[in-house]
């Protein structure tokens, strides 16, 4: 995996837009958007439902393609990639964390992480990853035997094990109680701060934005503000 120098631009959006055609009506999900994600960035996207934040995340993650504009990952345009190239991009560069965890129910916690580790040539140790998220004693539990917070931590370990350069988390705490949510936030925060992985987190939970380096506010499919957070809080200080 290519090493990215500190603070170098990892993802760059240039007028990236997404619209859906429903019959004769064209519905803009994301209006032309321009901004960058830097290496080690912890970026939180805030906005109400339907504001376009998940669309933005999907476009950056390469599971959706823009109808207009460009999205560059390390200067390679995702809009020009075919399905196989996008698959490679997701495999080697991006880690996803979903609101509903999306673990494979027939695999244990360890196996879920190993499954992804097998996809890349030089992964981290799956067991170490689960240890690092506090699940070293539940390696052989199946998802149905884990709580929601534990499942989400497995999902984070799964995202991290392949050494991604970018983590995309869609409402990672949306399905968790407060204390578990804080624990998950801390893991993501530490990845950005200590490992230099860029983390782009989508949430509608405003207090979470206080841990971000930069905060994007979205409404009606467009970015209404993008501001740096001069005093990011430690996740354990966050209250909601």
């Amino acid at each position, binding site marked *: 995996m290519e090493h990215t120098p500190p603070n170098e631009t990892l993802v760059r959006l240039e007028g990236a837009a997404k619209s859906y055609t429903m019959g004769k009506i064209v519905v803009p999900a994301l209006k032309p958007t321009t901004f960058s994600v830097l290496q080690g960035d912890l970026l939180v996207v805030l906005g109400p439902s339907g504001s376009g934040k*998940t*669309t933005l995340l*999907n476009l950056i*993650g390469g*599971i*959706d393609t823009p109808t207009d504009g460009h999205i560059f990952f390390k200067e390679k345009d995702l809009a020009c990639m075919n*399905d*196989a190239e996008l*698959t*490679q991009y*997701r*495999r*080697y560069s991006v880690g*996803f964390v*979903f*609101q*509903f965890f*999306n673990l*494979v*129910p*027939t*695999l*244990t916690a360890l*196996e879920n992480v*190993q*499954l*992804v580790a*097998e*996809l*890349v040539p030089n992964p981290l140790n799956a067991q170490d990853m689960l240890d690092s998220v506090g699940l070293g004693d539940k390696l052989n539990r*199946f*998802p*149905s035997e884990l709580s929601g917070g534990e499942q989400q931590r497995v999902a984070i370990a*799964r995202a991290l094990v*392949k050494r991604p350069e970018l983590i995309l988390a*869609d409402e990672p705490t949306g399905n968790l109680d407060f204390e578990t949510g804080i624990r998950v936030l801390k893991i993501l925060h530490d990845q950005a701060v200590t490992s230099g992985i860029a983390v782009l987190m989508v949430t509608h939970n405003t207090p979470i934005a206080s841990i971000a380096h930069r905060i994007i506010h979205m409404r009606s499919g467009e970015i209404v503000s993008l501001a740096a957070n001069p005093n990011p809080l430690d996740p354990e200080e966050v209250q909601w």
Partner: protein
Amino acid sequence: MVTSKLNLKLIRDLRFSPLMFGGIVLLVAVGVMLFVAAYSLYLNLQSSYATSYSRLNLADFSVQVQSAPQEVLSTLRQIPGVGEVEGRTIEEVEMEQPEMISRKVEGRIISLPDIGEPKLNQLKLLSGAYPRQDSARELLLESSFAGYYGYRPGDSLNIVILDDKVKFRIAGIVQSPEYIYVVRGRGYPLPNPRTFGVMWMRKGMVDEMFGTSGSVNDVEVGMAPGGNRRTAMRLASKILSPYGADEPVASENQASVELLRLDLAGHRRLAIFFPILFFTISSLSIYNLLGRMVYSQRSQIGFMRAVGFSRLAIGVHYLEFSILVGVAGGVIGGVAGYYIGIWVTKLGTTLVQIPYYNITPRWGVIAVGIISALLVIVVSGAFPALSAARLVPAQAIRAEAPIVGRVPIIERYLPFLDKFTLLSRLPLRNFLRNIRRTVSMIAGVVSAVTLMLVSYGLLDSMKASIDFYLTYSIHYDILAAYLHPQDQVAMERIERWKGVIRAEPVLVLPAKLVHAGRSQNILVYGLRPGDRLMLLVEPDGRKVDIAKVGLMVPELTAKKLKLRSGGRVRITLPKQTIPETPDAGATQTLNPLLRAAGIHGPSPRQSILGSSRALLETKMDRPVQVSAVTYQPVGSTAYASIEQVRLWYGRPLDLPPKAINAVAIKVEPKYLQTVERKLYGLDGVASAEVVRYIREEIQRLLSQSSVFFNAMLAFSIVLAAVIMFNSTLMNVIERTREIATLRTMGVSVRSASLLITAESIMAYVVGIMAGVPFGSWLAGRFVGLYESESFNMQAVIFPGTYWIAILGVLATILIAQLPGILYIRKIELTKATKDIG
């Protein structure tokens, strides 16, 4: 209002999965169609036979005698319960056909009353007229023989009587209730119009030719309404005993009647077995499909229950899916079965000509087919419907219950599986994840393979038995049969003919074997030890030579008489000249498929019988040793050295010292027709059966039966395709989010597709492992049902058939993956990864 909205939901749900529901409708339809078509054929044939027997007044029983005065018929009429008694003279003759190369065939003459028509065993006149009542040389000819040679009223036919050729005019073409299936007697499983024909003449003409005036050798008896047939048969036997009477034969044991009855039983078995396979798979499919639907609609069900829908309304709503599938499949299958039933009945009636057809729409069968399908499908759908009705709203309205994972036992006991990547082990986990679906997929494979092996197994067994008979057992090209015993010099003359490679003497005579209180009439072939044109094997396949001493008994006879090699058996002359078994309970079966295909008798050996008839006038009774038990697929004949047979029969029958009555001949291929023609030119030769013609005839008729087997192959493929298509698509749809997540993490479409295909392949492998032995076993059982005294078919499935089944189902399964793979390609990752239900 509530119901109408649920109905709207029903229709929309059906439209959401049209292919999956359509697939099950197709399975149900094929099952009903097979049942309706096959069972209608069975009933139409049964009813046509019964109508023919009734309208043509088939005798209730018959007794064959050596010779009885006609006056005895009046005594028989006095038996209480007897309605009608008729005496006939039946004689076996040789017929000549000047225009054809095989111009000698065996014929049976049956006498008609001098005036009018018979009252029993009446004839249906298809064309022409009855013979005149004067001494005109006219006869009636049985229709299948006439049809085979193209005879029409007005044509001539030469009959050889005591070496004189007598020309007869064919007055009419007829059908007889005794010869719907034209076989010589109960010892013969296969009709052969090429070599055997039946004709009827006025009694006066028969008497003039054979000197039988004032006597009969066959007595036919019809019972009065309410008469006790068993008592009448006993008394008739007693009255006719002084005249060399054989055991009375009840109408149901008459050769043609019995063979047709056994044929019908075979039709009935097939008509029930194959639809059961389809109904089983249909029920599994609907159970799975509705189960999945209820599972995926849990929140909807919870909502409906929460807003006031009753349990009953919910249950009925989901049950309606089954009802619709059952009704649609049933009606489509019923209509298709109706038309196909008519078609196959017509096809069947071209192969067996029945005097009176009774082909009617079998509404009852259609109704039973539809109702059975509906019941099976509704019962299968009732379980998911019940589980929907029982869902607790508060639980159902929540997100789906988590799937409980567990390490499969197989992984625990096969630690080397750890060496494989998780991605490659994932299919194994998923294979064991939904046991219901997995079992259904395996059952689909097992059923498809079984269907192929059973239907093709019957064909293979037929081919193998006939091939064994014609290739391994028989090495001669022509078997020439003499009307009277000859000296072996006759054979030596033939051996010197140009083109004859080898000629071997044969002496064939009928015998009755008695052991352990049981008896069986059989033919004894006398062959020279060391001769090579007729080879024998033991049941285990080992070659066995003709022993100088003792009798070699066929396996089925050995079973029946409880004989074994080294034991002793009594050999006597049968009362009858035509070897018919006196055991009324003995079965005489014939593969209905073989006969549905119209396969006519391949046994050249049978033609010899006519020649032995005149010989049997004295008695013989001696114990002989059983030197071996032999396997014979067709026919039931014992073997001994020709010297032994001459020794046993020589004195009682006054045979010449070196007697033969047949010659097995090996001929250079280019001289085959020349030798055949020369044989027919020889005086005393009754027939010359050419093996090549028999083989060609069998090939032609086997190819006709390919319609049935190809249809079964197509149905097997439909079965496998539908079950695999539904299972794969259900599997993919159920796991949309999981697959989408894998794809989001970087698993390619190809890898994801391989995961799903690997699961189907696992079901396939398990299904093949179970289906091949099960199908082979069942095929063996089916083949075994057709075992009879004269047909000992061994269950054989050719390697090619296994490969067709194994590769055919594999190809079907791989093709059935395509919709699932297309679905994987089209999964919207953005939506599917967030979808929780």
